[in-house]
């Protein structure tokens, strides 16, 4: 499985907050994703009802996951394809390597797949002497930079065009060293040209899957570039890698969920390409792959069923939660330290790599609730982060200062008179420290907070005092 730096979340965050280049890139989240999403859903009166429906479809599927997976398998086979059930990352990697060996593959093309990141497939295949090329532009850029993705649908969101140009000059040999690569268009044209050569030389094409359709044994990819299509069409062998919960019952069910996917992700009504692939090329077909394989990966998901984390299996990886998350917006994806960043990652990562490893992530939340508000599948992300915090506390994984702090607070909080007295004094002291500015730049024992931002000063009265005044004055107000 992909190596995580999640235990170093705090150090990662400090680095990210001081990284000016990253901060500039994150500033584009609003116009790039949030504004577009809003415009798209305002254009569709049924959007909220479609969210309910999408949630219900997935819930029904998860409640019958065994039956739908078996039907999917049966229909893939009936169409001449192969299904490989893989319990964990290692098994999935081995199966892909074996498919490559059995088909005498030298080169592997990749469409964008988060599951392939999850199982760290590229490094593994390269060790088997296979040439691996990512074909999605964003993935290609980070492959050249030897970096993991920092966003699940915009993997190179942290990279500036000047940095892309540097990578291209370094990698694309034999071109005029003085060529202009200043504009995104020039970069794209060069990438398109380079990638064409790879497309025509590919043996195995690996894609992810946004959906698996039980009714027909179909895998579906949703893309804008067309790279996934070329990857799976020009290669001799198409391998679709998907986790178990990607299955839906019917073509209609996939269509219903597609109506909320692109709108939530990029704010498009529909992505440029939605591709339904079933089996290998048919008799008489002039193009298309000769073999079709589906990797069905579990990697911890079956253990989430029937638990308080089952709802997470509804996730369709649209990235709306991270696009709207104040924490993601401040630190970016790499700080999270593993494949899935943002709120969905904070819930999913502890399930897949353990709360010991990823316990910091559910704590990286302001509980503003925005993630749940925008989730097209209505996943209660904040609630599930709280479940992880509880587990972390129960396992005594939270730091002793935190546990001591909570205990101290509990001591006062269970003695109302004492609590009122202490908080009353504290808020007056803090208000004095702010000196009328309403904020405090430096606070003893709270450097973790004030290093990066001001502490908002209390207005001189506690909530309880204000409440009491408000209640007393109630009779006067008409």
């Amino acid at each position: 499985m992909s190596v995580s730096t999640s235990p170093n979340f705090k150090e990662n965050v400090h680095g990210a907050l001081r990284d000016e280049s990253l901060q500039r890139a994150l500033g584009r989240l609003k116009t790039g994703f949030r504004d577009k999403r809003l415009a798209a859903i305002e254009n569709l009166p049924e959007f909220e009802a479609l969210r309910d429906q999408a949630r219900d479809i997935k819930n029904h599927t998860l409640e019958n996951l065994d039956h739908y997976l078996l039907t999917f398998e049966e229909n893939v086979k009936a169409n001449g394809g192969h299904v490989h059930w893989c319990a964990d990352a290692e098994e999935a990697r081995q199966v892909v390597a074996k498919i490559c060996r059995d088909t005498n593959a030298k080169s592997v093309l990749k469409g964008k797949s988060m599951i392939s990141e999850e199982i760290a497939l590229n490094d593994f295949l390269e060790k088997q002497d296979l040439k691996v090329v990512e074909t999605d532009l964003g993935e290609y850029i980070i492959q050249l930079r030897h970096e993991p993705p920092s966003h699940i649908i915009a993997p190179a969101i942290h990279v500036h065009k000047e940095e892309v140009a540097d990578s291209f000059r370094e990698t694309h040999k034999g071109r005029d060293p003085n060529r202009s690569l200043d504009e995104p268009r020039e970069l794209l044209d060069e990438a398109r040209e380079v990638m064409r050569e790879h497309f025509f030389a590919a043996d195995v094409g690996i894609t992810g899957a946004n959906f698996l359709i039980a009714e027909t044994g179909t895998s579906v990819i949703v893309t804008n570039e067309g790279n996934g299509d070329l990857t799976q069409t020009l290669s001799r062998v198409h391998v679709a890698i998907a986790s178990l919960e990607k299955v839906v019952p019917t073509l209609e069910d996939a269509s219903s969920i597609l109506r909320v996917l692109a709108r939530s992700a990029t704010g498009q009504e529909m992505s440029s390409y939605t591709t339904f692939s079933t089996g290998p090329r048919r008799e008489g077909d002039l193009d298309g792959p000769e073999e079709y394989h589906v990797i069905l990966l579990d990697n911890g998901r079956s253990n989430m069923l029937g638990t308080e984390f089952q709802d997470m299996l509804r996730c369709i990886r649209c990235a709306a939660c991270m696009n709207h998350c104040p924490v993601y917006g401040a630190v970016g994806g790499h700080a999270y330290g593993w494949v899935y960043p943002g709120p969905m990652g904070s819930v999913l990562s502890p399930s897949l790599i353990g709360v010991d490893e990823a316990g910091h992530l559910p704590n990286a939340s302001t509980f503003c609730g925005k993630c749940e508000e925008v989730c097209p599948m209505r996943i209660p992300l904040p609630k599930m982060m709280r479940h992880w915090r509880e587990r972390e506390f129960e396992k005594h994984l939270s730091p002793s200062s935190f546990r001591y702090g909570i205990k101290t607070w509990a001591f006062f909080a269970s003695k109302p008179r004492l609590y009122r007295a202490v908080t009353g004094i504290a808020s007056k002291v803090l208000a004095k420290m702010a000196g009328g500015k309403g904020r405090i730049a430096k606070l003893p024992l709270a450097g973790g907070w004030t290093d990066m931002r001001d502490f908002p000063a209390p207005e001189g009265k506690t909530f309880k005092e204000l409440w009491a005044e408000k209640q007393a004055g109630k009779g006067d107000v008409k």
Partner: protein
Amino acid sequence: MSSASNSTSRDAILGRIRKSLGRTAGDSAPRDVTERLASPKPNAVVPKRAQITHDQQVALFEKMATSVNATVSMVVSDDDIPREVARFLAEHNLPARVKTSPDAAVSGLPWSDTALEVTAGIAGPEDAVSVTPSFAGVAETGSLMLRSGADTPYTLNMLPDTHIVVLKTSDMVGTYEEVWARLREKEGHGNMPRTFLWVTGPSRTGDIEQTMQLGAHGPRRLHIVLVDDKQKTK
């Protein structure tokens, strides 16, 4: 390929799922599962946007397709298609060489009315323009429905810089659900072509600084020739 370890994992995974769901291996599928698979139906919520008259659907399709950077023109008969293709290529200063699908619906058009050099087959690196038929158009989002097959090779949809698609107005529907019903009617339930593709505008990417660029790896231009064949179908 089905290795021993693979079948062990299959059993283990299914075992864990069944345990979580409180089921055992022999349990037959509940009726709502078998019915859903045996006779798939549209889900309750389908946007009303495209539940309009056929003429309005054609107009909506044009509006939606144009909004995602496709271009659309209308001709009144099949015989006009080659001239429209030639006009479009000349207007955009594109090569006068075209690769069509082997499907007679496009390869059999009166191409000799034009000066275009036309061949039929799969797309190769040298093909800059393709002309393909379509299975249907969906008004809801201005999406083209393209199916692969012996007469409709898939590479024509993706490799050429310019993709020209012929869509008959009699093949215009409102929603995706109507497309699936048509496909089942034509192919039989559960039968899919190797690839069934929804195309909504030309290829694009926002991967460099979130700046939208057309023509990432697929076509830079998508031109749709609508053929008004309503009169014939009435």
